[in-house]
């Protein structure tokens, strides 16, 4: 259990009064998962975007009231919106139809997964739709609950549950189609 999880109310109160230790704790807690989420979803500068997201949190912290789960959702709502903004901006540039169509320096994520995951499993994952991968990234990398993910996506819990079930089933079925035994 992290400091933020254990003493969220105190950390939030201190963050609202501008205590550096509280912001250090919040950065420790969220910078990794937010960067991971943005990176996995193809953001062009995940670290830079994470900084923007958390500074936005600092700018708006006075207006926040709620528990740890609400806070976590709020942070990822901002991250998700920034990601959508970036996708839309890039999609309007001539010749750019997909944010991660041809990332500079190759597909870092795929290279990192080599050796950790069977190639067929990774290929099946890459075949998922954007929406399915958004949900799985928020759940697995962001560490969000079903309810928190639903808040971030602006959907009902049942809808998120159905999307993740279909995503996992699709990966499984693709493995079967490929005749893979793992």
């Amino acid at each position, binding site marked *: 259990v992290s400091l933020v999880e254990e003493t969220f109310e105190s950390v939030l109160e201190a963050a609202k009064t501008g205590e550096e230790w509280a912001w250090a704790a919040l950065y420790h807690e969220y910078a990794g998962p937010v960067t991971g989420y943005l990176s996995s979803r193809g953001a062009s500068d995940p670290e830079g975007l994470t*900084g923007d997201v958390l500074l936005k949190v600092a700018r708006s912290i006075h207006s926040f009231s709620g528990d740890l789960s609400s806070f976590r959702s709020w942070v990822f709502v901002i991250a998700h919106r920034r990601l959508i903004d970036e996708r839309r901006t890039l999609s309007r540039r001539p010749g750019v139809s997909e944010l991660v169509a041809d990332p500079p320096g190759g597909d870092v994520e795929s290279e990192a997964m080599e050796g950790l995951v069977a190639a067929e499993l990774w290929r099946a994952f890459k075949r998922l739709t954007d929406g399915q991968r958004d949900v799985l990234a928020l759940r697995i990398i962001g560490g969000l609950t079903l309810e928190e993910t639903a808040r971030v996506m602006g959907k009902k819990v049942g809808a998120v549950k159905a999307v993740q079930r279909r995503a996992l*089933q699709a990966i*499984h079925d693709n493995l079967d189609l490929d005749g893979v035994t793992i």
Partner: protein
Amino acid sequence: MSDFDVYESEMPKSTFSDSDIERLLSGNTPADEGLARLAPLVEGLRTIHSSLPPEEEVAVFSVEAASLVKSTRPHGPVPAASEKPVSRPRRFNLGLKRRLATFSTAGILLAGMTGIAVASNGAAPGDALYGLDRALEAVGIANGAAAERIAEAQALFASGQVAEAVTHAAEAADDIEESGADEAVDALLETADRLRSNENGSDHAVEVRSRVAAMLEYIATTEDTGRDFGQGVADMARGISGADDELESADAGGDEAGEDSGPPDSLPDPADSRPGRP
């Protein structure tokens, strides 16, 4: 069509149970052998995307964030750490005042909010739009001088004329007092939370509530101003009207999965709202 718009009846049936899926996604071994085959993928994703920020990065951020908080803090000096914390600090949000003022003076709202009027007429305002009247009331509370106009707005809302009601409230907000702007922000966000957490009623009602909630959050938190803000609200209001149409179609075809078609365009597109664009 987004992933959230596909109904379960149109998809191949999954053999995985929800509890097993939760086990997998939380890093535990699921009972189902087929699902267990995916565990290395979950573990791999978690491994390659988990990292701790360098200490110097944390230090730089914490100084900048703390300074930002102090500079944007509401009225009054920062209390010493030993002081008893204020349970709900006052905020000063001139941005909301400006945005709400733009709301009315730009004249964009009325056209945009037509969608809400349509939605409310078809979805019983007292159910689907529960809470919106409270948000209007809160904007009114923040602006005692315009109480009469707010009363008119609430009367319009009660009679189902939501578009006109919101326009009245926005006009009243032109004179909003700085000290009350934070109350309006609170009210908008709290209303949005209430709307989202209420999953009662038909899918239609839930959908409309979800989209209205997204719009209220946008109004309360966006940094857009001027024409961008007006266009953003208009876009989202049109999305509410769209939800009305989509869900009527979906209801006709049944909704076995209980899925939410959601607000795919609930966020205004900055590129669409640049000055000079229609």
